[in-house]
């Protein structure tokens, strides 16, 4: 109980900090971007220029505390400002279209990379003496050293361009609508394979290495020796005695791992022109659409905080010591 409450408090507090950072960021930057932008927008309507002013807190007539208050109130109403590159569409409307794609692609890829990574990591540690084990380890170390996006490029080149097995980009075939039913879904899956593979393979490396290390440490523990002495089956020892303990530190490091995965998936979207939040971020950067940029950033942070919270809950379920608040 205590653990749970503490986690919730931390979550609320962290969200608060995230919102504040988001508020402060543009106001801390040197005046240049705002002024350049405004000059660029000279031809636009006052409303757009105001949106920019709003985003940058250049309305010096308002006290910063009042600005903060307004900012929070706006947020509660779902008002994230007006997008500059998609003017006059509000930022939220622009974001709303991209979110499902990213959540879907990233969500599935993360789960897959965790599952595969964990299984491979456990096996690598269990069968440490074999040569194959070393080779696989080496392979993933190698893969991990490459930039995510480059890996995506290679995949696109070999599997989409040179040999058109997979599509070059996008989320679905142009022109298909949800109304097209199964065709639509098929197309989504088809288009999702390459980007999904990119994210999964590159982030798998992190899990593999972490779990392998944890597993090796756990295997050196005394309760493993006792389990062997008791005559238990190898699979029982591997799963219930070793793996169950080895996973715990990984789950708590989930937040950081998620950070990598998010980074990777953003880049993957850019390479594949996948219409998710990452691609949108890319475009926002190119077009200096700061309100959109900020909103995306905010969403990403919130996403991470929530996932982190869920990971904390999972640990609570898995580790009885945490449930009781015992010191490890």
């Amino acid at each position: 109980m205590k653990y749970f409450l503490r986690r919730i408090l931390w979550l609320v507090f962290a969200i608060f900090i995230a919102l504040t950072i988001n508020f402060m960021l543009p106001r801390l930057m040197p005046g240049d971007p705002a002024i350049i932008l405004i000059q660029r927008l000279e031809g636009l309507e006052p409303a757009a220029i105001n949106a920019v002013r709003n985003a940058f807190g250049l309305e010096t007539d308002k006290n910063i505390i009042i600005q903060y208050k307004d900012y929070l109130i706006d947020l509660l109403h779902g008002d994230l400002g007006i997008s500059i590159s998609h003017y006059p569409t509000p930022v939220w409307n622009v974001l709303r279209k991209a979110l499902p794609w990213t959540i879907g692609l990233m969500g599935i890829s993360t789960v897959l990379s965790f599952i595969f990574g964990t299984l491979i990591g456990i096996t690598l540690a269990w069968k440490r003496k074999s040569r194959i084990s070393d080779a696989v380890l080496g392979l993933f170390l190698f893969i991990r050293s490459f930039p995510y996006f480059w890996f995506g490029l290679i995949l696109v080149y070999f599997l989409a361009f040179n040999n058109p097995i997979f599509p070059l980009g996008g989320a679905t075939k142009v022109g298909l609508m949800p109304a097209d039913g199964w065709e639509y879904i098929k197309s989504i899956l088809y288009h999702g394979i390459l980007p999904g593979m990119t994210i999964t393979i590159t982030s798998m490396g992190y899990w593999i290495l972490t779990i392998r290390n944890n597993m090796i440490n756990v295997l050196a523990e005394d309760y493993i020796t006792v389990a062997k002495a008791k005559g238990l089956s190898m699979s029982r020892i591997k799963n219930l005695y070793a793996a169950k303990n080895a996973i715990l530190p990984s789950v708590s490091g989930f937040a950081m791992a998620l950070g990598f995965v998010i980074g990777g998936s953003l880049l993957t979207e850019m390479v594949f022109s996948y219409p998710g939040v990452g691609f949108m971020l890319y475009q926002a950067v190119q077009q200096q659409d700061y309100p959109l940029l900020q909103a995306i950033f905010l969403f990403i942070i919130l996403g991470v905080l929530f996932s982190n919270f869920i990971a904390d809950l999972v640990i609570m379920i898995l580790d009885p010591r945490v449930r009781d608040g015992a010191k490890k």
Partner: protein
Amino acid sequence: MSDKLLEVQNLIAGYQTKMGRVLAVNDVSFELKKGELIGIAGESGCGKSTLAYSIMNLLEDNGAIFSGEINFSGDNLVDFSAKEIKQFRWQKMSMVFQSAMNALNPVMKISEQLIDALKAHQKGISEKEARKRAEEMLELVDIQKDRLDAYPHQLSGGMKQRVMIAMAMILNPDLVIMDEPTTALDVVVQRNIIEKIEDLRSEFNFSIIFITHDLSLLVEISDKLAIMYAGKILEIGPAAKIYSNPLHPYTKGLMNSFPPLTGEIEEMSGIEGKPPDLLNPPAGCPFYPRCEKRMEICKTEMPEFKELENEHQVKCYLYQGSDNLE
């Protein structure tokens, strides 16, 4: 003899390293009768734990039995296949590990840990029966039934140790090896555990190999006592005899190392020096550099066991050739 349970003969075991073999157990022999408690005493690093693990066949990685025999009721355990060992172990012979060790799986209830030992050896057993047996075992070691579903971290040190004893006894083995079972516990808890072990032994009549560096404890509970140093047993015999008349200079030194509760305050004498490097064990007696009574021959040749009255044996040149001790 028909009630001889365990006979270790010239056991040599240790660890293979890049620099050679570390002979942690260097030619050890002893016998154990049914229902007997043999205490094995010695300093840290003398090879006691390696001996225990060798008998249980739990040496891993680079640990191995290099030569010798371990005869259990006539069968040589060293010759057993992995499958035979797996079946045999815990059923006929089990081990209680050091209480300081992390011997209980932190994410499993102790009921599960007790039951899976049962299930591994009694394939047909039902969940209900297994649980009942686990409850019985806990009762035997004075732990309330309602703690059956507790996790290790919810138990005190003494309770965890008792769970391990229950776990070791759950299949009613003939021999239980106890490796420093009370070392990390406070004296009051130690006393309880020792008494409990004694009670269980008289009720179920199993043999015990009790390993510790606490000689004073062993003197009280052992039938037989073996003094181990640098991988060798230097002196072995009935506990009372060794206590009243220690023969080997090392044993004498050990006996002199604990102060009596009563009597005059005397200056304590320790034993100077440190144990030899087991990577390159000396050819002669390993205690040579630290022995007050050493002789030339001690350096080059290891003495054999000389039995002096009633199974009291010692490996020391001081007693070779002489037939009376007093």
